[in-house]
């Protein structure tokens, strides 16, 4: 089971890191969210894994999971939310001020291709052109 959880932590971390290194603000925010999941589970696992013994005092039981990492992770989850919210609003502000969502304020970086509507079906494309014509008129 430990291997499984370690693998999950590893995957969460690497996806988080990869997305954090992206050039557009939204994936960066997603990346930090993923990284926060990874970090939270990692911190939680520092108390070792226990199945079926929550840290609620019950004289009949006697063994409990480690409550201290849990308390820390609980606040960490809430703070991570606060940070995500702040970052996403910062991204909105940047978009508003710079008119683009690149982390360095570029319209199109050297290693990016301009947006294409490649994933539309033909029917959708026709519809879209129609609507555009309407609005021009």
């Amino acid at each position, binding site marked *: *089971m430990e291997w499984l*959880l*370690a*693998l999950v*932590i*590893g995957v*969460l971390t690497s*996806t988080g*890191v*990869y997305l*954090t*290194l*992206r050039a557009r603000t*939204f*994936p960066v925010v*997603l990346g930090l969210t993923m990284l926060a*999941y*990874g970090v*939270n589970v*990692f911190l*939680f*696992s520092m108390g*070792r*894994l226990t*199945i079926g013994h*929550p*840290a*609620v*005092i019950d004289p009949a039981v006697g063994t*409990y999971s480690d*409550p*201290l990492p*849990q*308390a820390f992770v*609980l606040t960490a*989850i*809430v*703070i991570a*939310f*606060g940070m*995500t919210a*702040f970052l*996403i*609003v910062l*991204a*909105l*502000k940047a*978009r508003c001020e710079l008119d683009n969502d690149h*982390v360095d304020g570029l319209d199109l970086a050297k*290693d*990016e*291709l301009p*947006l294409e*509507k490649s*994933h539309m079906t033909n029917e*959708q494309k026709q*519809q*879209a052109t129609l*609507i*555009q014509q309407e609005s021009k008129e």
Partner: protein
Amino acid sequence: MTSITSNLPIVTLLPFIGAIVAAWASSFNRLASAGVAAAVTILALVLLAPVMAPVFAGETLIQSWSWIPAIGLEFAFRLDGLALLFAILILGIGLLVIIYARYYLSAKDCMGRFFAYLLMFMGSMLGIVLSENLLQLLVFWELTSLSSFLLISYWQHRKDAREGAVMALVITGGGGLSLLAGVLLLGNIVGSYNLSDVLAAGDLVRSHELYLPVLVLILIGVFTKSAQFPFHFWLPHAMAAPTPVSAYLHSATMVKAGIFLLARFFPVLSGTAEWSWLVGGAGLITLLLGAYMALFKHDIKGLLAYSTISHLGLITLLFGFGVQLAAVAAIFHIINHATFKASLFMVAGIIDHETGSRDMRKLNGLFKYMPHTAVLAIIASSAMAGVPLLNGFLSKEMFFEQTLMATSETALIWVVPVLVTLAAIFAVAYSLRFIHDVFFNGEPIDLPKTPHEPPRFMKIPVDLLVLLCLAVGIIPMIVVAPILEVAVASSLQAAPPKYSLAIWHGFNIPLMMSILALVLGVVVYMFRERLFAWHERRIADLDARIIYHFIFNSITKLANNITRSFDKGSLQNAIAWIIGTAFVAGMIGFMSVTSPVLGQRELLPIDGVSMLAAVVIIIASMMTVILNQQRLVAVVMVGVVGLIVSLIFVKFSAPDLALTQLSVEIVTIVLLLLALYFLPQTSPKEIGRLRISRDVFISVISGVGVMILSMAVMTRDFTPISDFFLTNAVPGGGGTNVVNVILVDFRGTDNLGEIVVLALAGLGIYALLQGLKLYAPVRDENGLKWTEDNHPQIMQTLTRLLFPLMLMVAVFIFIRGHNLPGGGFIAGLIAAVALIVQYLANGIAWTAERLKIEMHKVIGMGLLIATVTGLVAMGLGYPFLTTTYTYLTWPVVGKFEVASAIAFDLGVFLVVVGSTVMSLVQLGKLSDASHKQQQQQQELK
């Protein structure tokens, strides 16, 4: 004296409180802040009055409280003669400056800001002179640098004010760091940071091998603050400040802070050859340089600035002689310089105020327009020149005498007296220029305003100061002798030597030097035109500022280049460096351990459901990455990951975490969707193969690293400290849910910090979104129109029905939190979700009409409740946030337990609800506003 045991800290802190009141008062009436400032200053003087008598009797008052004993930091104040002299100067001249500034500032200057800064500065200066503990003194020292920065840059719209302020901050702030190092060494040598101990350890310090570094470091602090060569150049640039500031900072206070330290440390550091050369050398150069430069400044404030530098050099030189009689002359000159220079700056301000110019080439013949001011200026200027019957004459005579005495047995027997006389000649010349060029010498040349006398209250402070100059000059024994006596005694830490304040000492060499200076000064002034021309040709372009700018720019450039070479101006590179560094640090950790990576702890068996969950979370994570350019899909995938994470917490016995994660997940996804609406729906395709492979590499190695690290930990047994919490949760905290008891009780202060962060994030979001205008897209990225059915009927009905139920769940979770999984955080999130659902389903206008609570107030209330809970415990004599509990028996409900921690948890609850709802509703409002705009546009069509 038993009734007054803590007036010194009150006197010091009073101006800081006054600063807040003054800033606040100005919002009602701009003149009220001047009143507050004056009242605070008078109150400080009154509070100081009862302890003056013992100080005049030679006592030293010390009032101290333990602060951080481990590093030798005490909250300790000291009042002796020297401190009293400076405190009187700071408060007395401060009061006059406040009255003067009230009339000086124009209607468009913000009075509240000015007087708040001025009071802050006054408090910092009082802190320096009244501190017994040296570390505490340093704190106030830095505060003077900061508050003087604010004062010099008071006219923020002016470039010269901003530059002058930055220069003053860089020089004096840098000197402050050096002083810090010097004082730390000094305290280390002595073994105490208390002035009483340091002053008693002079012999130990002087014979210590670190004496020279200590001396140099402290002197750099002193010289930068007191504008001594080679750090003198910031002072003339600080003249961009409003003139009351110059009158205060550059006559009596800020620049005297360095001089004060010279007087303070005189018994500890002086008496060595190093002291004489460094202090005396800097003083002599500054004296000459300042006196020379002052003559060639056409700006009257520039003249006064260099003259101040010169007089500070004179005082420093006197201390540099290192003998007791010279110290007497130095302290005497501190008093005299403060009085005549403050009045001269005020006169300069009056002239500027009433004529609109400070250029002496335009200002001529003002005597007949403002005779009263002219008389005051003539007297103060004569005092500066050292004319008999004025205070400047007395201290200058003493200075000449000391110069002769101190150098009589050295090789410099004639060099120093000659140079000093030369400086005195220039002093006479520039003082004469201030009188003749401004008030006589023909008619004014195209001044912006017709000159006239200033308002009466602008002159009264000058009247008083000039009167003091005369009084000290004519009857010194009555006016100045007592305070000088005790100030000297406490500076020297010994009985003062015999000295005489008589006006007439008979025909002696000092008198000859005075007469020579007066006569030759007049001659130099008469030939000024030729001197000016020569100066313009040869000297005027030499300016220490050029060197300063060169050094400043080079350092900035170097720092920029280093930063640039790492991140190349891109956030992506910066993040890659951070993660790379973390990885390297982790590798070093792995390398330094010799035991096997995995430990011996028995592993738990894997079951099918867990396997399945792991597969799902891994696939969802991968999909998030692969589909990250399709942002909506990516958000859905993140949601899946979050849900599985909460299942992980369920599986491994953490129900509180599972509940928190679940509710946070919902809020996060709603938030991301709201924001995504305003952002591009897709990211551009990346084609930089190098960057992608680099990023894949970094992310894979960090993932593998973290995986091995967590495996290494999880396979090892350990003894947790949690047994303490498990055994004490019920008897100590009165709750069976240990996680919640830790949060609200054992680690309550931590938690208080956390909710403050959350509250700040919420308020920060609110502030960021203020005035933000984003246009909602009419279509998605495929060009398809968004639906206009914003609030579907079925959802509306359903959510309204569910709302009370959701709130009930929140209340239930909150109340049971202390004993079973739940608590303030989770309940807060659930309540927030309940509210947000209403906003989503029914629209903001509908909900806002029914929910008339401002979320700011909810946040504030939450923080208040949480803090007050802690303070109540303190009030009852327990440590902050100590909790208690008791059992109550109610009919029907039966016996139940009430813990005071629930009040703290209520605070947590409110902050979580407030911050969460505020963030989301603000974002929602944004889209609401942009929709309305669209509708209006359509209606117009």
